[in-house]
């Protein structure tokens, strides 16, 4: 009876791993979603140098300062479903892109939070990453005219899209390895009985 208990536990963990590969129905919307984000980003990334109108000799990203209404564009959202969406806020000299990542259960929420925190602490090395995400989103980018002057616009857009694809894959991989480790631990522990 102890042995059957072991096998039931392992089957339970197996079933959870197989449910991870349910990607089927979701991936139908993935390509159109990324294409919509790509075209919206390309449209928003028309930024040029614009000095501050409020303070002499200062140059601030207007999307962050939000001091003058005439410099800001209407924020635009592209959503794949109620949980996954991208918010694009534009302005004359900068844009802010915020991504809400799919988090299906508690484990994914924790993994996502830690992963995003890891990256945001190293935001300086990323150049375009923002240290804090916008409210209701998991990660935010701030792209200014200085970035578009130094880097290719289409490459910046490619980077953001690739980032979105990779994040989902990485979190799934982390979850699978986490479950595999949990399975091994459970196996070892239950061998004692």
């Amino acid at each position: 009876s102890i042995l059957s208990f072991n096998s039931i536990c392992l089957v339970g963990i197996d079933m959870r791993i197989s449910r991870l590969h349910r990607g089927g129905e979701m991936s139908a919307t993935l390509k159109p979603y990324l294409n919509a984000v790509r075209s919206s980003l390309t449209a928003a990334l028309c930024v040029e140098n614009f000095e501050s109108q409020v303070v002499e000799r200062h140059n601030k990203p207007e999307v962050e300062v939000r001091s003058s209404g005439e410099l800001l564009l209407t924020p635009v959202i592209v959503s794949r479903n109620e949980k996954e969406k991208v918010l694009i806020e534009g302005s004359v000299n900068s844009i802010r892109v915020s991504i809400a990542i799919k988090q299906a259960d508690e484990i994914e929420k924790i993994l996502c939070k830690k992963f995003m925190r890891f990256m945001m602490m190293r935001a300086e090395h990323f150049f375009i990453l923002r240290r804090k995400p916008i409210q209701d989103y998991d990660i935010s980018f701030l792209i200014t005219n200085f970035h578009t002057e130094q880097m290719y616009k289409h490459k910046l857009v490619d980077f953001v899209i690739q980032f979105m694809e990779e994040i989902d894959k990485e979190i799934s991989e982390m979850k699978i390895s986490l479950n595999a480790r949990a399975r091994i631990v459970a196996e070892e522990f239950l061998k004692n009985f």
Partner: protein
Amino acid sequence: MSKNTRSADFRKVDVDELDEEKFIDEPEVSQDDDDTDVISKRESEVKSLTLGGRNLDALKVSLTDPPVYSKDESAKKRNFDIVLDVLTRFRQSEVEEAVKKLDSEQVDILMKYIYRGFAEPTENSCGILLVWHQHAVAVGGIGSIIRVMTSRKTV
């Protein structure tokens, strides 16, 4: 010393308010207060067209004269509901030719509603909205997206 220099009241003057070039963001307000009637009429017309299976005509009717000037949020919401209902009735294969039959102004208005649809996602809307977005961009180009972002007249 003359008397002038002692007063420090000039420090209390708000210079920004007196700036002649200051931007004041005032969207045009419609004179017409009968938005609700117009929208109800549109609602019933669209309903009859969709029940008759003429989805494309329903789409054209729903996209004419959006209440961009109105300050009434409920009127805008109702119009949005009408448009979203029509958009979700299309099948994926029908979207492409429907977009091709719209003129450029209608495509721009369609884009505004697509983005509003993304902002208020429901269970089934996002999938078909992504298809609409793809074909609207194919017809309208990146310019139609930029016009959504820069336009002050929100739908």
